[in-house]
């Protein structure tokens, strides 16, 4: 194996210090996005306050346009759309976060193993990544979501198990880069076991690019959940999700534009915030700042 340039950064920084430095280097857009994400989580935490309003059916007020009484208008059953959009926040955020975590876990395990062992293992695992990438994501998602019993766990697994190849590619490249650096060699020479080196030395140092990949993954997972709910194979009622609210919009497209507009806007805002945060994290972790 050829000699690689040794980067001084990974050895010197403790994870604690590095985390503070990443946040400090986050560009303004990234900080704004982080604020929006935090705000969304606060909204999600407060959303049970509106649960009753979101579920109350008033057929006499069905398809009412936005007004002071109903900020976003009402849906086909006369339920307050503002309350429903707010109450859908926790499901989208939580499923997005957990599914992206599953994808990251599977992706890191596969990618790091491939990068660490190289050779035949790498060849085999790289084929596995390639195989999953060959399928249209939505084909796999729909098949998994429709064939397995519908539950939050199914959704999380379906999204997590289709989204990991991207994370795996990052992890593989990162581990291949790091494994020949001095500190990894030193750990090996000191007799550390492979799992220990992977978990204690490689994971923390491969983390910055993986965090970026994971942040993009959250945005993607939220979109995937919304698409599945929109297509009617997400969580069944009474669970509220943005995609689920939007699924009735086509039927009323010529009389109630607000059913299409507001839940989609919430979805767009959330996904943009996560993507913008991811973009900012990428800038913060790759740009060479003062060490």
């Amino acid at each position, binding site marked *: 194996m050829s000699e690689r340039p040794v980067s001084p950064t990974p050895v010197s920084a403790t994870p604690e210090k590095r985390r503070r430095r990443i946040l400090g280097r986050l560009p303004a857009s990234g900080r704004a996005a982080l604020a929006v994400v935090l705000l969304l989580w606060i909204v999600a935490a407060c959303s049970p306050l509106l649960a009753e309003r979101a579920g109350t059916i008033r057929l006499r007020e069905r398809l009412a346009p936005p007004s002071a009484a109903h900020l976003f208008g009402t849906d086909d059953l006369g339920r307050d759309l503002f309350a429903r959009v707010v109450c859908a926040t926790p499901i989208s955020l939580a499923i997005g976060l957990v599914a992206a975590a599953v994808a990251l876990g599977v992706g890191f395990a596969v990618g790091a193993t491939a990068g660490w062992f190289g050779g035949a293992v790498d060849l085999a695992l790289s084929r596995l990544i390639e195989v999953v990438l*060959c399928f249209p994501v*939505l084909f796999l998602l729909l*098949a998994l979501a429709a064939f397995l019993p519908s539950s939050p766990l199914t959704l999380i697994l379906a999204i997590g198990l289709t989204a990991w190849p991207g994370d795996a590619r990052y992890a593989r490249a990162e581990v291949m880069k790091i494994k020949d650096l001095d500190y990894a060699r030193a750990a090996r020479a000191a007799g550390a076991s492979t799992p220990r080196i992977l978990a204690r030395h490689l994971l923390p140092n491969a983390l910055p690019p993986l965090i970026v990949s994971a942040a993009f993954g959250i945005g993607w997972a939220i979109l995937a959940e919304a698409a599945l709910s929109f*297509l009617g194979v997400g969580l069944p009622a009474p669970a509220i999700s943005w995609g689920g609210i*939007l699924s009735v919009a086509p039927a009323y*497209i010529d009389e109630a534009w607000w059913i299409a507009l507001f839940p989609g806007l919430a979805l767009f805002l959330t996904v943009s915030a996560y993507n913008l945060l991811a*973009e900012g994290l990428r800038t913060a972790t790759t740009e060479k700042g003062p060490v």
Partner: protein
Amino acid sequence: MTRYVLRRLVLAIPTLFGIVVIVFVLVHLAPGSPVSGGGEALRRPTGRAAEELRRLYGLDRPIPERFGAWVSRAVRFDLGESFVDRRPVGERIREALPHTLLLNGVALILALVIAVPLGVVAGGHPEGALDRVSGVALFALYSTPTFWMALLLQSLFSVQLGWLPLYGVASDPAPSGLAGLVDRLAHVALPATCLAYGTLAFVARLVRSGIAETREADYVLAARARGASRRRALWTHAFPNAILPLLTLFGLLLPALLSGSVIVERIFAWPGLGRLFFDSILARDYPVILGLSLLSAVATLGATLVSDIASAAADPRVRDGTAT
């Protein structure tokens, strides 16, 4: 070059095998199969459908034998019969294919025609006005859910303005001659736009970053020093070198477009492959679901191979494995 092509072809064999295995696993996740277990009683096919499923996939036989039977049928492109209308799966796919090809073809052309020049011009002046504006716009498109975009466009162009039809492939009855062509174009406009913008954002960002990197390469500066105009240096010197490494990614546009087709074809009542797949999911029409999954994955593998080989033929860095 021959070595590279051979290596790629040999590596495609295990990938093809993996695709067949994944589709086989999907069969066994399907309700009514031994693995899926109890619970969803309502979804389980009963009577004739269950019998058919068992016969088709040999569910009463041991797993290795089952796998062997499935592979031998898949190799012969014998995809079975649709549970819904008893017609061969291949026939149903052939019927839907032209619609999807038209829609995706228009979308792909639309995306590339806008994305490539935009990426080159934006990348030619990084941080310039156009780069900043297009950067924000592309970022917004990137985060916009397809089905939301579809609903907004329908609401604006079909309902409020009444310019374009809400859905369908053509008016009924379809006008003939030039009016017929205009009618088809009006019908394809909105779904193709919805399908195109994601690809557009993806490609434009890639081209932009490729150009931004190569525009200061020695050979581009040398061309400028020899007196080539800015535009010429950008398009004939920077562009080919920036675009070549991206060629390998083009094979992966196929599954992305097919994914988009599922949503777009459903909203716009477009009778293509995406709609066929979704209807089959709802109807639990397993032979169609599996046939379509297999074909689309194999088509993607083929497209990836072609784009890899094409980029290797054009770019020595790829053949030598020195490209990043």
